[in-house]
């Protein structure tokens, strides 16, 4: 009785060896594939760090604060590009945040019929799908010629301010900032919309119940409740704006001469990489790698902070 016949279907048997091997092999395979993410990340960091060793040893931290970029004299300083990266990304953020959050409110509120709101939402998402290089082409041939008289007006009226102190002559920082606004607007809108939709409807009902107007409720109740999600989205957008390459490279003018003016041609770290890396050799490669390392660390800090903020939000509402 203790041993059942082999044909008994209810007996527990060990899986055949082949099946166990496949099972274990598959699990190991997925572990390896998952760890590729870490390996690639480490590889990126190592490649860029190793590539920049030479420049780091030669220029040290002075690389970050000097603005000579002279491949023939082998003197490199990335301040122009670092200034360009920070100024273009922060200013584009200042313009894009009100626009994006305003659009997100417009899409989540019931001001207009649902159908139109859905179409608006889809349009903003499709804007995110347009390749950066196509936006750059549009910026060169359509936006910049249209913008030039306006920027010229800024120069003639406000030219005494250092940031408007040069005459606009085509590509420059200002058009680059505006094309960056177009590129980060969809991210800010999408994440703000998601965070606004996550706010519990009871908050809104309670606000209306004590007699607030729609915008009192939005500005004093709903936006404060969604603020950490929106902040996370804004930081992600900042990271994206810092690393954005093609459209900026095509419209910023790629000048390595430093100027405070937003109307002058400038440079960002990513546009400098796109523009020079292919033809660089010797110490220039190393200097460019050093600049790439700076860019990578900047975006890394911004992105990790963004994740931290977003995680805090999800703890709050889940």
């Amino acid at each position, binding site marked *: 009785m203790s041993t059942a016949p082999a044909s008994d279907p209810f007996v527990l048997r060990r899986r055949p060896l082949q*099946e166990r091997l496949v*099972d274990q092999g*598959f699990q190991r*395979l*997925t*572990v390896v*594939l*998952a*760890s*590729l*993410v870490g390996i*690639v*990340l480490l590889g*990126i960091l190592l*490649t*860029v760090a190793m*590539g920049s060793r030479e420049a780091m040893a030669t220029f040290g931290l002075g690389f970050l604060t000097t603005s000579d970029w002279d491949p023939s004299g082998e003197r490199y300083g990335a301040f122009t590009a670092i200034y360009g990266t920070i100024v273009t990304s922060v200013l584009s953020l200042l313009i894009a945040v009100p*626009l994006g959050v*305003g*659009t997100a*409110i*417009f899409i989540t509120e019931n*001001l207009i019929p649902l159908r139109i709101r859905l179409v*608006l939402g889809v*349009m*903003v998402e*499709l*804007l995110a*799908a*347009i*390749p*950066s*290089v*196509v936006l*750059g*082409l*549009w910026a*060169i041939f*359509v936006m910049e010629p249209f913008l030039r008289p306006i920027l010229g007006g800024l120069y003639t009226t406000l030219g005494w301010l250092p940031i408007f102190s040069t005459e606009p002559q085509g590509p420059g920082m200002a058009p680059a900032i505006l094309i960056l606004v177009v590129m980060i*607007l969809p991210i800010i809108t999408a994440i703000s919309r998601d965070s606004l939709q996550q706010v519990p409807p009871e908050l809104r009902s309670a606000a209306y119940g004590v007699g607030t*107007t*729609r*915008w*009192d409720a*939005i500005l004093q109740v709903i936006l404060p409740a969604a603020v950490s999600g929106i902040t996370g989205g804004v930081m992600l957008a900042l*990271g994206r704006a810092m*690393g954005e390459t*093609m459209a900026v*490279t095509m419209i910023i003018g790629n000048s390595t001469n430093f100027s405070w003016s937003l109307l002058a041609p400038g440079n960002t770290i*990513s546009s400098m*990489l796109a523009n020079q*890396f*292919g033809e660089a050799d010797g110490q220039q490669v190393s200097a*460019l*790698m050093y600049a790439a390392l700076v*860019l*990578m660390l900047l975006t*890394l800090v*911004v992105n990790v902070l*963004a994740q931290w903020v977003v995680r805090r939000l999800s703890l709050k509402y889940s």
Partner: protein
Amino acid sequence: MNTISSAPSASQPPLAFRRSSLAYKPGLARNRWNLAFTGLATVFSIIAVLPLVLVLAYVLIRGGSLISLQLLTSLPPAPGLDGGGIGNAILGTLVVTLIASLIAIPVGVGGGIYLAEYSSSGPFAQFVRFGTNVLSGVPSIICGVFVYGLIVATRLFFDQSYSAMAGGIALSVLMLPTVIKTTDEALKLVPNELRWGAIGIGASRFVTIVRVTLPAAVSPIATGVVLAIARAAGETAPLIFTALFSPFWPEGVFNPIATMSVLIYNFAIMPYEAQIALAWAASFVLVVMILAANLFARWLGRFAQA
């Protein structure tokens, strides 16, 4: 006796309860502010959609008017000459994107399976999720620098420097986080009852995943994969110094290759009308392909919800 300042009389209820107090008074400051903010949000939304409309209009009109069979199938002209086409770049974009997909989809789906099915909350899985988020934030130009340093400068493949393969690998690094994330999230949405059912009738873990959970999650995964491919097809920065460019038809995956995005970048800054026209035409083809892929992904997503 009365705490309300306006004493109730026989004919009039207290001020706060009079019917007239419920009427909307457009003259009140708060109602004016309300209207002003609504107007502002409307203006902001219009400004937000305007670029899409303008860019699409220009690309469709300036690029679309140039499209012909000859343009789609011939090589770009030498600088200064007229005519020619973008046939090699269209083919090149397809080749490079295909290489990237062949690498990123298996790796990404496999990694996603690990995260969702084998170790959804272990420390290693948390690390991989964190790494995925960090990787998706790495600027695309840095991916190009990475592949340049790893493959192009070291001449890793058959002593070739710039190659379609290098470009494809750079794009796959960009696609990887999206594919992992969507697979992870799609598998987490599959109800546990399905897994228990499969294990309960004696299926192994492998069979459960391959025959039960993956098929149940295939449509959201496909949506994410299509979106990732569409994004990769339009990327330029990682290709400039990995795949480079070529004025000829593709000569195998270990040689430099033309792509539409690099063609737009190279030709847009040339002083020749013919090249600029080709850049607009390539933009048209690229945008149509990418928007079609996005709409397809949207349709797949709706299919998933049904």
